[in-house]
C-alpha cells in the first residue's frame, strides 16, 4: 500500500523558504513603485518641458512681461497692445470665476 509521504520537508528551514517568497514579493513591489514614480512624476515632467518648448515664443513672453512692468531695464509702452489687453481681460474673467 502506498502511504503518502508526510510533509516533513516543510518543517526544514521555514524562515529561509518564507524569505525567498517575500524577497520576490518585495522586489516586485519595489519595482512597481519605482516604475510608478517614473510614470507619475518623471515622464510628465519631461513632457511638460517638451510641451512648453514646442509653443514657446520668446518675444511674445518677453513683451507680455515687459508690458506688465516686470523688468526694470525695459520701459513699458504707454499704450498696451491689443492682444495684451485681451489676455488681461481673460485673466480677470478667470479670477472672477474662481471667486464666485
Amino acid at each position, binding site marked *: 500500500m502506498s502511504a503518502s509521504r508526510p510533509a516533513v520537508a516543510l518543517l526544514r528551514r521555514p524562515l529561509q523558504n518564507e524569505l525567498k517568497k517575500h524577497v520576490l514579493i*518585495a522586489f516586485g513591489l519595489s519595482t512597481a513603485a519605482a516604475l510608478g514614480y517614473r510614470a507619475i512624476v*518623471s515622464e510628465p515632467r519631461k513632457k511638460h518641458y517638451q510641451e512648453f518648448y514646442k509653443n514657446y515664443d520668446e518675444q511674445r513672453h518677453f513683451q507680455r512681461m515687459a508690458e506688465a512692468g516686470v523688468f526694470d531695464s525695459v520701459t513699458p509702452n504707454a499704450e498696451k497692445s491689443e492682444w495684451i489687453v485681451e489676455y488681461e481681460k481673460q485673466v480677470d474673467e478667470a479670477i472672477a470665476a474662481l471667486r464666485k
Partner: protein
Amino acid sequence: MSTWGQLNLQEGMSTIMELMNYFHDYMMTFIVLILSFVTYMFAFVIISPRLDKYTVDSHILETVWTVIPMLILLFMAFPSLYLLYLMEDVSNPSLMVKVVGHQWYWEYQYSNSWFNYSFDSYMVYEKSDSPLYHALDVDNRLVLPTNANILFLITSADVLHSWAIPTLGIKADAVPGRLNYLSTMTPYSGVYYGQCSEICGSNHSFMPIVLEFVPMSNYLDYVSNLSVSE
C-alpha cells in the same frame, strides 16, 4: 523663486538646471526602489513569527547584497559624472560678468573689450505700499541677455559669501583672494532670484541677487543707455 509649500526643486530656467531636474527624478526612482524594498523586508522581519538562530554565514547572500548595490551605484554614477562635467564646461562665453561679494551687498562689473561698467546691488527694504518680495528685491538688478553663454567670475572683498541662483542651477562660493567661475545660458527671459548662501555676518539673509534676462536687442539697448549715461 520658491513659493510657499514648495518641496521640490525650482523650475529649470537654464539647460543645465533642466538636466538636473531630470537627474533628480532619475535618482528618486532608485531611492523609491530601495526604500520600498527595505521597508517591506523590515515589516516582514518584524511581523514574521519565524526565527533562525543557527545561520552563521551565507556566501550567496553576501555576494548578492554586494553585487546588487554595486550595480545600482554604477547606474547612478555614469549620469552623475556626465552632468558634473557638463556643468563645468565653459565654451566660448559671449559675455563676462564679475561678481564681488561685500558685507552686505553684491557688486557687479560688466567687463569686455568695449564696455566697462560696475554697480552695487543692495536689498530694497519692503514698504507697506510697495509690491516687493520680502528680502528678495534689489535696487539695481543685473541685466543679461538670453541665448548667450555668460561667464561669471565670482570673488569677495571681505568674508566668504556664496552667489546662488537656484532656478538656473548655479552656485559658487565668493572667496576673498580667489576667483571662482560659473557659466550659464538661458533661453527664457524673465527675472530670477537668488540669495547669499554662505554665512557672512548679521545681514547674510539680506543680500539677495536678482538677474533680469532680456532678449539680446533689449540688452544692447540697455547697455548703450548705460554707456551714454556714464
